[in-house]
């Protein structure tokens, strides 16, 4: 059902944000996906990023298995690793050894490796779900604004401006502060995760919304949309059958680029103590505890910091590569 894409590349120049609704003419007989994949495969950096993303997803998925093989239960205390008077890990390098790959936490002696592995679950879960929320709202609002134009567009565009102006972090902190521990039929961590997904996703939709709006604006002037319209197709039909399929590529690209932003956001909230409740391991939460030990147990801060950094970087590299692959303008 996807629309034919053999439209001359003239519009590309005019639409700087244009991503991949074209390209068919040059490589006749290959689908857009195949072309993009070919390009992406040549981009070693993006592929490395992609591989790391897949790795982290697998780590999150199989956390219990990995930990049972290489670590200790993430919430298990190992007091024998801790100096009773100072509270810091004994042994060199913050207790690093074959037994504890990344060392142990001060005070509790919990295995840092296992907590990093389990922390990946929360980061990935919230990163993905929040992005999903943003994409759903953003796509819907963006298409409506771009397609109908006029006052609808003006209203939604203004709304997007307003949303971008909100002090998100403060809002998130405030919401977690005022809400009870059980509400909307959820409680404890389920509620916390729901709140985090909602806040991060709900306030970030304009990023997707703006891009979709721009794409829709250019698409609606195309012949195939005009043709549908002249054949008497309803607006709903055009939106769903003609526009949406052509927006899949940009949605994919910008979702990939939004996920790392959301992962950073979740880490920030956990760092500020308004994330998921302990003892559940989160990368941001580990970093906030590491603040007190930055001078005596650097491994405690390096492990979660690098986990966040590498994961976010991998998503960004992959997302950039994906955009380049799908965007004919940037090929070298």
């Amino acid at each position, binding site marked *: 059902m996807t629309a034919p894409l053999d439209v001359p590349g003239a519009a590309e120049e005019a639409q700087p944000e244009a991503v991949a609704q074209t390209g068919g003419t040059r490589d006749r007989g290959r689908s857009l996906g195949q072309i993009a994949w070919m390009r992406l495969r040549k981009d070693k950096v993006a592929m490395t990023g992609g591989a790391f993303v897949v790795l982290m997803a697998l780590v999150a998925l199989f956390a219990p298995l990995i930990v049972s093989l290489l670590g200790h239960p993430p*919430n298990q*205390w190992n*007091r024998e690793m*801790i100096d009773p*008077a100072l509270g810091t890990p004994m*042994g060199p390098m913050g207790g690093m050894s074959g037994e504890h790959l990344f060392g142990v936490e001060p*005070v509790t002696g919990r295995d840092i490796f296992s907590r990093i592995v389990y922390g990946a679950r929360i980061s990935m879960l919230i990163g993905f779900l929040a992005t999903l929320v943003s994409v759903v709202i953003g796509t819907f609002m963006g298409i409506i604004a771009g397609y109908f134009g006029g006052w609808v567009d003006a209203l939604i565009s203004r709304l997007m401006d307003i949303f971008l102006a909100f002090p998100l972090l403060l809002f998130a902190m405030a919401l977690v502060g005022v809400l009870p521990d059980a509400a909307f039929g959820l409680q404890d961590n389920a509620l916390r995760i729901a709140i985090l997904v909602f806040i991060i996703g709900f306030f970030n939709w304009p990023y997707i919304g703006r891009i979709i709006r721009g794409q829709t604006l250019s698409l609606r002037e195309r012949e195939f949309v005009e043709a549908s319209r002249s054949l008497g197709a309803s607006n709903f039909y055009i939106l769903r059958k003609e526009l949406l399929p052509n927006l899949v590529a940009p949605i994919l690209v910008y979702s990939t680029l939004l996920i790392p932003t959301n992962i950073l956001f979740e880490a920030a909230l956990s760092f500020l103590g308004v994330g998921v409740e*302990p003892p559940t391991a989160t990368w941001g939460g580990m970093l906030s505890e590491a603040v*007190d030990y930055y001078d005596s147990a650097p491994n405690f801060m*390096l492990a979660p910091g690098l986990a966040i950094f590498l994961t976010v970087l991998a998503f960004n590299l992959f997302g950039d590569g994906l955009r380049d692959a799908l965007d004919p303008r940037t090929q070298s």
Partner: protein
Amino acid sequence: MRKKWLGLAAAGTSVAMLLSACGGGGGNGEGGGDYSVDNSAISSIVDQSKEQGGTLKLAHSDQFDSLDPGNTYYAANWDFTRLYARTLVTYPQKPGDKGQEPIPDLATDLGEVSDDGLTWTYTLKKGLKFQDGSKITSEDVKYAIARSNFAPEVLNKGPNYFFQLLDAGDYKGPYKDDNLDNFTGVTTPDDRTIKFHLKKPFAEFDYLAAMPQTSPVPADADTGTQYQTNVVSTGPYKFESEWTPGQTLTLVRNEHYDPSTDPLTRNRPDKIQVQWKQEENDRDKRLINGDLHVDVAGLGVEASARQDILRNEDLRANADNPQTGFLLYFAINPNVEPFDKKACREAVLYGADKTAMQGAWGGTIAGDIATNMLPPSIKGYKPIDPYGTKGQKGSKKKVEAALKECGMPDGFSTNISYRSDRDKEKKTAEALQQALQQYGIKTDLKGYPAGTYTSEQAGSPEFVHREELGIIAYGWGADWPSGYGFLSQIMHGDSIKPAGNSNLSELDDPEVNKLLDESVQTEDPAARAEIYAEVNQLAMESATFLPYLNQKALLYRPEELSNVYFSEAYKMYDYSALGLEQ
């Protein structure tokens, strides 16, 4: 676009650099070293001197609840307010147990009790003046009691013992009723005599008279919640100018203070400065390098400075590690299943690993393991340990026996509540969870904000029952240094309240209630101590308390300070005695 691995390579270098920094930085001691500190300010007055002068610099990592002596519940502030707000009774400047015995301050003598025990009488000394030179009268004391205890809609931060004890009918407080004569709980037959009329006898009334709430307040200077910005001084120091909360507070000498009326020497420095909201690690560093004299909160240094002090012999020589009088415990609620069965409660008591909980608070420096519900400094303390286990690590055998007896040999599930913004309490809850888990007792952790913990969650029995909070993390310090001051709020049946409850075990044992009631009608302190010992025994036998730590603080006293000693009454350095070496 082609990309290279530059970024990643750069990241790699920084890791290597940091790790080598770690190796050299010496963050990893061999463990179990000798970290004993000097402790001499606990048993003696360090650097006694009569010198006057200098500016005493204090700092707080947050701020006091209020500087208004009638509107504060922070022990540190009760110690601090003595610099500008004298009370009817106070505590002597003596280290050790003697520092807990009340002595008269504004009053000529300790309280004189009537034969029926219902009236306590104090007489003001002659020549007492406010900072403006006007005479302090008994009416000013009466007004202070009225505003601090009978107007909770305005001043709600302090305790309300006078409200509970005084026979005042339905007096509405001075802000709603501007005729002070309607306040019959306190009468003032003449300018110097103050009579407190009680509903029932209360032998420990002198301790109440030592609270900052008895510090006189001139009615025409009272500005309600804003009085803290301009407290009218009765002590050796006064506010230099109107104080804005959060701004540095400067106290200067009060020329109308007459040291000859004062049993204490509390006028050594020329000036006293308090800075608020000083970041903890920064505060500790300044304390160690002498830039600052006292951490006025009195809770001790943080993790980072603790390591610095313990690893350095010279610093250890200026440090004290006293007990703070604060007992940390878990309440086990017998109205939450399966804790209605005593054996199930005992399973938790036997299963707890107290060394892990001690570790959660920061190890041996952070406290001594507690085995019963009285802090050692309180008269009547006996080192009983009804649920002791080897090494305080828990006993598998005893837990299994208890579980079998309670009919749940495979364990059970319950919840542990804690204050989510208190990291150490959170860690302790995790420690307990870990320990119990190995015996099949599965627990879920429930964190609530400290702000609403006692009003809405742990302090609301209805909430506790509904949410099945079987084990509740808590800590308690005495409002005055006696068994009643410590025990009554957390184990007397009458203390159980629908909101703001502090008897979290919901213990309503007639024997305990009777003994506590008896104690405050017993005039002989030694006899009272015996009663407290008995109450402690009974409370432990109820298996509704899991005490685990007698908290200790690591206090540092810079070289410049003179007359430093640890006050057993306030459980921190006595700020009124401090001087500076010139």
